[in-house]
């Protein structure tokens, strides 16, 4: 059985297989990396390194994009 990591993504609990990268998470959710920005444990993960950053159990992630605003 694969180990699962427990994450908090945009305030909601989410699980992903151990060994997954931030890029894997973004793909798992179904997002286009070019349209979002990711913060992991309060630090920005540059888009170019999404595939290199391994997730660890308990990580808190914020994934944001642009919405209408004044």
């Amino acid at each position, binding site marked *: 059985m694969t180990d699962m990591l427990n994450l908090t993504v*945009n305030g909601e609990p989410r699980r992903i297989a151990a060994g997954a990268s931030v890029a894997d998470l973004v793909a798992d959710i179904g997002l286009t990396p070019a349209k979002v*920005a990711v913060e992991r444990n309060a630090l920005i993960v540059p888009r170019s390194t999404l595939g290199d950053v391994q997730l660890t159990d308990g990580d808190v992630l914020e994934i944001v994009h642009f*919405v*209408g*605003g*004044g």
Partner: protein
Amino acid sequence: MTTPTTDDSWTVAGRTFRSRLIVGTGKYKDFAQNAAALEASGAEIVTVAVRRVNVSDPKAPMLTDYIDPKKVTYLPNTAGCFTAEDAIRTLRLAREAGGWDLVKLEVLGEARTLYPDMRETLKATEVLAKEGFLPMVYCVDDPIAAKQLESAGAVAVMPLGAPIGSGLGIQNRVTIRLIVEGASVPVLVDAGVGTASDAAVAMELGVDGVLMNTAIAEAKDPIRMARAMRLAVEAGRDSYLAGRMATRKYADPSSPLAGLI
């Protein structure tokens, strides 16, 4: 002979724009209406907010599908931030999401008035400028605060004409004018415009531009109002450049008195 207005551009942090109207992208019925209003407004810059993606509906339409960031300058804002720390965090994410360093900083003091907290605003301006951001800063209509922001690294100061979303129009023309006279960076009225004449009043005070959202989005016909705002900003600018007549206490006939029958 008419003076052409097409070359009356303005420059912020080295970037030159022809339109002096900046529009928001909030409160519209849908993205299509928003895009149509933007087109009618002639604006070249739009403000946008940074928010969490909906993880449970990742394929929902996005603003970028309707308003192309390659054609229109996105100005990420910090709306909803009440501390310098939150605003800085938001803009770091915005820079990562879009790659833009020209940003709109607003740090709010309280929900009821959405008045800016100038102490936090100043603090955030300093940090952002050091990190290479080019902050256009929403502020109180206070000429001294405007100068302090400029020294802290603001590339534009954006005093409110009236509270955000109030539509009350320019409440203090004197302070807006004092800010214009004291600033060496562009001054834009941000917030308070309710109708086209308000935008013209702002421009007649000599500001470099006007930023608005609700006045267009909450009009019964937002697309027509967007056009009205474009024309009002152009008219106000022309009026300012033309130099208005002096006022008099009493009447002065426009027709000659000589040759009366």
